[in-house]
């Protein structure tokens, strides 16, 4: 089972605040420990803004040992886009945060998410009206056995 959450209209004054807010949804759901958002910021500080996977979309994550308690996925839409410093994909208005308790538990959920993103999930999230619709879109993208209501 995958914990799913969403937050719409988040105010963030820069990529660090946006990243912390996105990972913070995982903490609120109980899927990640309190230190996880800061670990996600450190990933970008250390390795660069590669988590901006495609135009306008960042995949916020850190390692399981940085505070992953369960498999969790959360979508966050910003009130105003922020710059990550990515050469091609800035600015970012949509963040998907994920966490996992070990290096294998997330593969099915994340693979399904990749397929769904290729099939237009990001635009459906951008078009959703509010938290509940965003969470529902995200839930539909996950494999059946990973859905929160399964």
């Amino acid at each position, binding site marked *: 089972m995958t914990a799913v959450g969403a937050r719409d209209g988040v105010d963030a004054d820069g990529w660090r605040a946006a990243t912390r807010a996105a990972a913070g949804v995982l903490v609120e759901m109980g899927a990640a420990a309190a230190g996880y958002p800061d670990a996600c910021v450190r*990933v970008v500080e250390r*390795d660069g803004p590669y988590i901006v996977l*495609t135009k306008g979309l960042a995949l916020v994550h850190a390692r399981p040992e940085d505070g992953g308690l369960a498999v969790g996925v959360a979508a966050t839409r910003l009130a105003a886009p922020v710059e990550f410093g990515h050469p*091609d994909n800035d600015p970012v208005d949509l963040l998907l945060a994920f966490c996992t308790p070990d290096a294998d538990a997330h593969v099915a959920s994340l*693979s399904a998410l990749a397929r769904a993103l290729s099939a237009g999930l990001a635009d459906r999230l951008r078009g959703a009206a509010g938290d509940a619709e965003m969470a529902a879109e995200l839930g539909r993208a996950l494999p059946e056995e990973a859905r929160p209501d399964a």
Partner: protein
Amino acid sequence: MDRTLEVLAVCGVGMGSSLMLKMTAEDALRALNVDARVENTDLSTARGMTADVIIGQGMHTDEIADAAPVVITVSDFLDKEGLQAALRERLAEKGWLA
């Protein structure tokens, strides 16, 4: 190529973004009818591995430009068509496309 092509998708953490890239690469290689095994890993692990092709973002591939015969830089991890075009060109240069 008369054996399975070994491909590495790399990112910083080695399990999130690179897994997304692995899915995209598998689709692109399938579309090119290339027999390939794609693994995803972090940059430092990739340095110690052997592969025919390494794929990643420029901020990473710049650091491992000599780690494989073919290193492909992509900026959009979900762009199958773009990756497919890059693979077609680079694999053909090596004579690895049937």
